[in-house]
């Protein structure tokens, strides 16, 4: 177990005075990940936005023991990066230029913002990780949804944060990349003593990303802890309103017949 990297104590957040997230507490240690699951509209994305400091919140969010409320945005962004679910391409930047934007806080040239050779190497490494080297000079408006998703993943990696927040990271990705992404992030977190907090729709991928699970419903926490301790058929049925475990077993039976 590493040190406590990210801690939330009774965090509530929402829009126009209405709380969407209510009194959520959690802690993530260095080198470990956390998956957040729950039905649509239960406040998962809102929670991530509060952690990234793009939504106002009540309660306490601490980063390496320091309350983020006292930090400037650039100090928070040095530590926390977020891969959002609805990033889009508005202008036709190249893949390379888009990923380079992730180096914003690292680039030392404050006047024109020209990257150093170290920044360039770092970006190439991120492009390689996201398997984008072949298309690095292509305009992002000409990419498929999955490729664009990987561009934003590379951008998040280029930010070189301590904590990555993922909001539905596997949207648009094919099966191979979904699995590769999760495996890569696990390794990224454990190797460098960092952490990934991922909002996942796919429960199987959630379990693959982390042993620990936060289950949300109606803005609050309905269960939190190690998956093998807290996850029961009853919990999932209560959360999603269908017999999730039964459905998975049915699927399993189908797969057993696949030759």
């Amino acid at each position: 177990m590493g040190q406590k990297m990210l801690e939330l104590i009774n965090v509530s957040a929402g829009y126009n005075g209405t709380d969407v997230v209510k009194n959520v507490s959690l802690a993530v240690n260095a080198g470990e990940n956390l998956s957040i699951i729950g039905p649509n509209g239960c406040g998962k994305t809102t929670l991530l936005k509060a952690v990234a400091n793009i939504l106002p919140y009540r309660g306490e969010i601490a980063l390496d023991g320091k309350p983020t409320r006292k930090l400037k945005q650039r100090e928070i962004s040095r530590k926390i990066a977020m891969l959002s679910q609805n990033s889009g391409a508005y202008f036709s930047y190249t893949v390379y230029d888009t990923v380079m934007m992730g180096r914003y806080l690292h680039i030392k040239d404050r006047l024109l913002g020209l990257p150093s050779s170290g920044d360039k190497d770092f970006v190439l490494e991120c492009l390689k990780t996201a398997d984008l080297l072949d298309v690095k000079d292509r305009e992002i408006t000409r990419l498929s949804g999955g490729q664009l998703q990987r561009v934003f993943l590379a951008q998040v990696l280029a930010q070189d944060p301590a904590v990555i927040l993922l909001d539905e990271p596997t949207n648009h990705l094919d099966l191979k990349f979904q699995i590769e992404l999760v495996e890569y992030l696990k390794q990224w977190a454990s190797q460098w003593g960092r952490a990934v907090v991922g909002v996942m729709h796919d429960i199987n991928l959630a379990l693959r990303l982390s042993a620990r699970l936060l289950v949300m419903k109606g803005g609050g926490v309905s269960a939190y802890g190690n998956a093998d301790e807290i996850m029961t058929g009853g919990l999932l049925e209560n959360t999603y309103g269908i017999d999730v475990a039964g459905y998975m077993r049915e699927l399993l039976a189908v797969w057993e017949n696949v030759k």
Partner: protein
Amino acid sequence: MKTKIIVTAAAALAALILGVAVGSVYIPPGDILRIIAHMVFGARLPEEISATSAAILWNLRLPRALLAFVAGAALSVSGAVMQSVLRNPLASSYTIGVSSGASLGACLVLLYGAALPMPAMLTLPVFGFAFGLGTILLAVAFASGIDSRMENNTIILAGMVFSLFVNAVTTLLMAMSGEYMNRLIYWQMGSFAMKDWHTLYILVPLTIIGALFAVRCNRELDMMTFGEEQAKTMGVSLKRVKWALLICASLLTGGTIAFVGVIGFVDLVAPHIVRRIFGPSHRYVIPLSALLGGAFMVICDLAARTVVSPSELPVGAVTALVGAPFFAYVYFAKRKA
């Protein structure tokens, strides 16, 4: 990229020379240089150049062409900044009220003889500028009051509400005292006629400072085109940068239209064409929009004063007449491909 930049710079210089050379009296480019050398460095004027030519060039053509260039550059930079900050291809300082405010200011001066303790030639620009900037500041402050995150749609809508309201006030004032209406309409159409070096002394530093600030913010502008949340999570101090850029764009537009009237279209067209040719990075978009917008304005003004010479067309109409088909060609021809 380098070649493209050099070609653009050369074209801009050519436009400027053309704008100075052509008129009721043609002055060859060589003579232009000699006259400038004579006026600036005190070099001897060759005998074949008449004093009249020199006077025409120095007192009329050169300040006028330079003013057109600077105005075009300022409006284009402002347009580029607004489009990116508000993430809207049609956004400009005009959309959020600078021209309506400036028109109201001009209206008050023309109709009620509002005066300040300053030279008379400055009264109209100063009022126009103050009211233009005031309208935008009110709109943005209003937007930030009702929406603490200051989202783009809120700003655009607040700007439109203020803009329409101020326009209505101007229309009412005009309707109530018809005799000055023509002067106000003439002012609103925009013109570079009857301007001298003094206007340049104010507009040149303003434009340079504004454009340099925009270039300085090139990376923030790049990131803001991906949306505010993404820019913020990457470390941009969003609210502060957004305010600063909105004010920078408004100063550029407000300062320009205060002196030369409302000239539309160049702020919309120039940045789009630059992005088509040079890509969307603001490191290039800002300076090249200034070059291209400046050159475009010089050519439009040249057309405005020569096509129906000796009378003049309103340059605002020419920018749209020349710009619209050209823009349609550049924008849609490439999209079709």
